[in-house]
C-alpha cells in the first residue's frame, strides 16, 4: 500500500431508508463504488443530479455512516466528521448569528488555539479569500459570492488535509462562479490539498480538476475516469485551449447519456 493516496474508497454501497408509501423499499444511492483519489489531487465528481455524488462526499466527510465497503484516508478509516476533512456546502452553511471573523475563528477555537492566534490565522484567511474589511459583517449582509468566500476561508483556516466541496458555486450567478473558480484554483496552487469537488457543471469540472470521475445515473457508480492533463496553470486562456474545448465536448457526451437515463428513470 503506497502512502501517496489521498482517499481510498472500496466497494461502497449506500441505501437511504424508504418512507411508507411510494418507495417503501428505500433508495439505492450508491452501488459498489471504488475510487482512489491521489494525494493533493484536485478531483472532480461529475454526474446528473440524484446520482449519489453528494452522498459519496458526505460519506467521505463522515456525516453519514458507511454501510458497506470502506473509506479510508492517510489517518485511517473514516468513522466520524473531523477537521482533517473539512467541507464547503452549496448553501454556504455559515453560522448566520456570527460575524465573518467569528465564523472563520470557530474551527480554530475548537482546536484549542489561543484567542490571539485564532484571530491572526482567521484574518490571514479572510485576506486570502479577499474579504478584508468585512470581518465584522454578518452573513446576511453579504452577497452570495462573498458568503461563499467566507465559507471557504472558514474551511481552509483549520488547514484540513482533505477539502470536500459540495457544488460550492452552484448557488452563484455565472459571472461570480467564473471568478470564484479561478480564485479557488489559485488558492489550491498556493496551498496544495486533496480536493474532492462535486459538481454537475461539465466546464467547471474540466476547468478546475486534474482528474474527473463521471458517475452513472442512480444507483451511482464511477462510470469513467478522465485525466484532464491541462497542466497546473488555469486562467482565462484555458477556456479557449483546444484540449479544454475537446474535453468539454467529450465529457458532455458521457454525462448526457447518464442524464438522459436519470430523467427517464422517473423522479
Amino acid at each position, binding site marked *: 500500500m503506497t502512502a501517496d493516496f489521498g482517499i481510498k474508497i472500496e466497494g461502497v454501497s449506500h441505501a437511504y431508508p424508504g418512507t411508507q408509501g411510494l418507495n417503501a423499499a428505500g433508495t439505492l444511492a450508491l452501488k459498489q463504488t471504488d475510487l482512489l483519489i491521489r494525494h493533493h489531487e484536485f478531483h472532480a465528481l461529475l454526474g446528473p443530479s440524484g446520482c449519489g455524488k453528494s452522498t459519496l462526499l458526505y460519506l467521505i466527510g463522515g456525516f453519514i455512516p458507511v454501510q458497506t465497503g470502506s473509506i479510508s484516508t492517510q489517518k485511517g478509516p473514516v468513522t466520524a466528521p473531523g477537521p482533517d476533512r473539512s467541507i464547503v456546502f452549496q448553501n454556504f*452553511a455559515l453560522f448566520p448569528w456570527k460575524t465573518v471573523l467569528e465564523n472563520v475563528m470557530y*474551527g480554530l477555537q475548537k*482546536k484549542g488555539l489561543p484567542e490571539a492566534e485564532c484571530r491572526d490565522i482567521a484574518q490571514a484567511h479572510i485576506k486570502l479569500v479577499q474579504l478584508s474589511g468585512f470581518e465584522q459583517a454578518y452573513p446576511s449582509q453579504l452577497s452570495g459570492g462573498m458568503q461563499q468566500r467566507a465559507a471557504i476561508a472558514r474551511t481552509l483556516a*483549520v488547514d484540513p488535509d482533505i477539502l470536500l466541496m459540495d457544488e460550492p458555486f452552484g448557488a452563484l450567478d455565472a459571472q461570480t462562479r467564473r471568478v470564484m473558480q479561478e480564485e479557488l484554483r489559485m488558492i489550491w496552487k498556493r496551498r496544495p490539498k486533496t480536493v474532492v469537488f462535486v459538481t454537475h457543471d461539465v466546464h467547471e469540472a474540466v476547468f478546475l480538476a486534474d482528474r474527473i470521475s463521471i458517475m452513472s445515473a442512480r444507483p451511482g457508480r464511477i462510470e469513467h475516469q478522465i485525466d484532464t492533463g491541462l497542466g497546473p496553470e488555469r486562467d482565462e486562456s484555458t477556456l479557449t485551449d483546444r484540449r479544454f474545448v475537446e474535453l468539454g465536448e467529450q465529457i458532455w457526451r458521457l454525462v448526457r447519456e447518464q442524464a438522459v437515463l436519470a430523467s427517464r428513470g422517473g423522479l
Partner: protein
Amino acid sequence: MAAGDMRSVAAVDGRGSLVAVVALCVRYLPVLIMLAVWELVGRSGLVSQQMLPGIGAIAAAFLDLLQSGELVVNAWRSLSRAATGLGLAVLVGMTVGLLMATRPLFRTLFNPLVRILYPMPKSALIPLVMIWFGLGDASKIFLIFLGCLLPVIVSAYNGARGVNPFIVWSATSLGASKEQVLREIILPAALPDILAGCRTALAFSFILMVSSEFVIAKDGLGFLIGSLGDGGNYPAMFAVILTVASTGFVADRLFGSFVSHRLRWKEQA
C-alpha cells in the same frame, strides 16, 4: 406602511422631527377618533355614565388609585407572579425542548406529556392549582409556569429540529463536540423560534395572571378589577382594566424590540 416610510425619510434628511411628529399623529389619529367617540357617546346620554364612564372620570380614578398606592401594590403582586412563572417556564421549557429535539430518550419521555398538555386550555387548571396550592402566590405562579411552559417547549423543539443540518455538519467537521453543537450551534440557530415562543408565552402569562386573579381572588390587579366592579366603582374598574391592557401591550412591544436587537444578525443589509 405609509407612516413607516415617512418616518424613515424623515430620519434620512435630518430636518425630520416635525415630519416624524406629524406622521405619528396621522398614524394614531384613529385611536384619538375612537376615544372621542367614546367620550361623545358617554356625554350624549345614549348610555348611562355607569356603563361608560367618561375619559375624564377614568383618568381621575386612575390618579386616585395611583396616589392611594392600591394600584402599585397590586400591580407589583401581579407582575412579580407573572415574571416568576414566565421566567421559570422559559428556563425549563428551553432546556426540555432542546433536549427533546436532540436526544431520542427525552423525546420518548416528554412527547406524550407535551401532546396531551399542549392543546389543553390552560385556564382549565385554575381549580386544580387552587386545590393543590391554595389561594396564595404558589397557585398562580404554578399556573402561569405551566401555561407558558408549553409554547416555549414546542418552539424550542421545532426551532432545534428545523436547524439547517448543513450548519450542524459544518460545526462537527470543524471539530465541535456533541455538547458544543447543542450549546454553540443549535441553541443560537433555534433562537428566533425560541424567542417567538417566549413572546406567545408572555401573552399567556398576562392572560393567566388576570384570569387566575379573577377566580382565586385575594390580591393583584385581577382581584382589584373584580372588587372595584363589585363595589360599583366603574370609573376605577375601567382605569385598572386599561392599565392591565396597556401593561400587556407595553410588555409585548418591549420584548419585540429586545428580539429585533438580539436577532439583528438576521436583518438584510
